[in-house]
């Protein structure tokens, strides 16, 4: 029952938020994916701190050892412990991917919102630019940029990755905003005296939250694919270790054809594991956001 002290719209704001959170927590896919990711990061962080070796310093340990109790994944021919590298690289790879994904995501949301909501000539121009970024093979440009810049730092790496990963999610978001914009409740909000940005925040964004979440996971995943790809061919940041750079070292030393499984298989598995967990999260969020799959309550 309603009591005059508990004003319904005050509680409404709170319950809406709590409800949103509950839907996310109750979704098994999202939680499973997130747990997978958090578990991996924790393992890598703790493991790295527990191991006494330096992932970057050459000659830190004996060269080219097979796996043993002391070095569970063995060591590489430059004298670095591979498990330490794996732990260190995992954290760094994920953080580069997340930073790039975050930047790309912000670019995508801003361009989609500006273009999609305000429309007109500006939108047409932004739309063409977006399509251009989708059509051109970004890797080619990435290689060009990375090669020309020469010394790639970690923030720079994130930035270049971001510049070439925002376009596709932006296109999809724009389409979503365009269809939401035509919905009747936007008209109604206007009639209630709301304008421009208020409408975007109050009426459009809440309906896009799960969708945005899903796309964030996908963008991070793409950024990490591109990241590992660039590093694999030797265009990553220098003087550090990421999963892609581990693979690059392995490839340069022909580890695939020499049967040095302990060197390249672990980073591959970690990468696939990360992609998979991000994908599961995005599927879960998609389930919440997609009205076709929603069961009417």
């Amino acid at each position, binding site marked *: *029952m*309603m009591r*005059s002290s508990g*004003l*319904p*719209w*005050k509680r*409404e704001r709170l319950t*809406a938020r709590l409800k949103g959170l509950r839907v996310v927590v109750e979704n098994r896919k999202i939680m499973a994916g997130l747990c997978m990711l958090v578990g991996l990061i924790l393992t890598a962080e703790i493991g790295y701190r527990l191991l006494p070796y330096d992932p970057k310093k050459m000659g830190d340990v004996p060269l080219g050892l097979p796996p043993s109790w002391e070095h569970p994944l063995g060591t590489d021919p430059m004298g670095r412990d591979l498990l330490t590298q794996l732990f260190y690289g995992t954290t760094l790879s994920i953080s580069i991917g997340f930073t790039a994904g975050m930047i790309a995501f912000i670019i995508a949301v801003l361009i989609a919102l500006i273009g999609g909501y305000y429309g007109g*000539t500006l939108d*047409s121009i932004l739309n063409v630019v977006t399509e251009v970024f989708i059509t051109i093979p970004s890797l080619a440009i990435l290689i060009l940029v990375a090669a020309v810049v020469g010394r790639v730092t970690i923030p720079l790496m994130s930035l270049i990755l971001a510049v070439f990963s925002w376009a596709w999610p932006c296109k999809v978001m724009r389409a979503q905003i365009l269809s939401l914009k035509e*919905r*009747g*409740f936007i*008209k*109604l*909000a*206007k*009639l*209630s*005296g*709301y304008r421009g940005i208020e409408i975007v925040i109050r*009426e459009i964004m*809440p*309906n896009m939250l799960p969708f945005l979440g899903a796309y964030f996971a996908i963008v991070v995943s793409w950024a990490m694919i591109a990241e590992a790809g660039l590093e694999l061919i030797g265009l990553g940041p220098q003087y550090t270790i990421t999963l892609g750079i581990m693979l690059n070292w392995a490839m340069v030393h022909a580890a695939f054809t020499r049967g040095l499984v302990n060197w390249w298989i672990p980073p591959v598995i970690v990468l696939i594991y990360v992609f998979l967990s991000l994908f599961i999260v995005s599927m879960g969020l998609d389930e919440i956001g997609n009205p076709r799959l929603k069961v*009417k*309550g």
Partner: protein
Amino acid sequence: MGNLLEVSNLGKIFSLGGLISKNSVTAVEDFSLEIPEDRQVIITLAGESGSGKSTIANLLLGFIKPTSGRILYRGKDVWKLKGAEWKRYRRELQAVFQDPYESLNPFYKMSHVMMGPIKKFKLSKSESEAYKLASEALLEVDLNPEEVFSKYPHQLSGGQRQRVMLARVFLTRPKILVADEPVSMLDVSLRADILKIIQNLEAKHDMSCLYITHDLSNAFCISNEIIILYLGSVMEQGNFGAVIKNSKHPYVKMLVSSIPIPNPRSRWEGRVKLQEVETARLETIVGCKFCNRCPEAMAVCREKRPPLLDLEENHKVACHLYA
């Protein structure tokens, strides 16, 4: 007394296509309308799909900008209104739409819809007063406020949703309600209730209404005046009864005779003729827009667009037959 709303020679041309190719469609042409300040009216704006009736609604509500003509509210051009005056126009001209489900954000409960206008138009001083206002409005449309506040759109029936929309309108005490097909999505047995609420708002709360519909039978229940549109132009307008019972324009005659009457003893007589091909593109018609389908078309009909002629008191027609 002046007119509350005065629309003169309104026109809207939509341009299609992207940056390079330009294609345009005339949606509304030379539309005029007056809503007096001193008395309340319910005017029906009727037409088939593509007649431009919804475009007119969007123009009046300020959602789109007219290509030509003016909309004066309390004597001032609405596109030049600023600050408080603009807010007043926003508050005093309200609307309900065809699909109430579409008009409700699925993310929020009903209290969100009710609180929006109260907050933005500063209708109350305190939260508890706001709650009282919202409850009153819901009671006015025969809904139980405590029950409705905490419901999501999908938890209400179509009729209930449309009532919430009308309660929201009632909150702002508008001078004019634009009702765009408010009952066409509802079941027949529930339509009368919504019509009654609209009539009640007009009679008790000094609100005029522009009732936009394709369904003349429903409009006839509550409205005395009608404007009939065809492809963006007014064909005939005036007293509802006169236009229906004594139609002048060949299009209106055809339209009225095709409206089904719920009585097997008054069935359609004869057969109506259907078009074999699509009408030519509207932009290429220089004469009367109906001339291609008109059984009584004359040479002049293809050459000149007919002006809106005064036939008798409160009955106008745009047809060369009566020139």
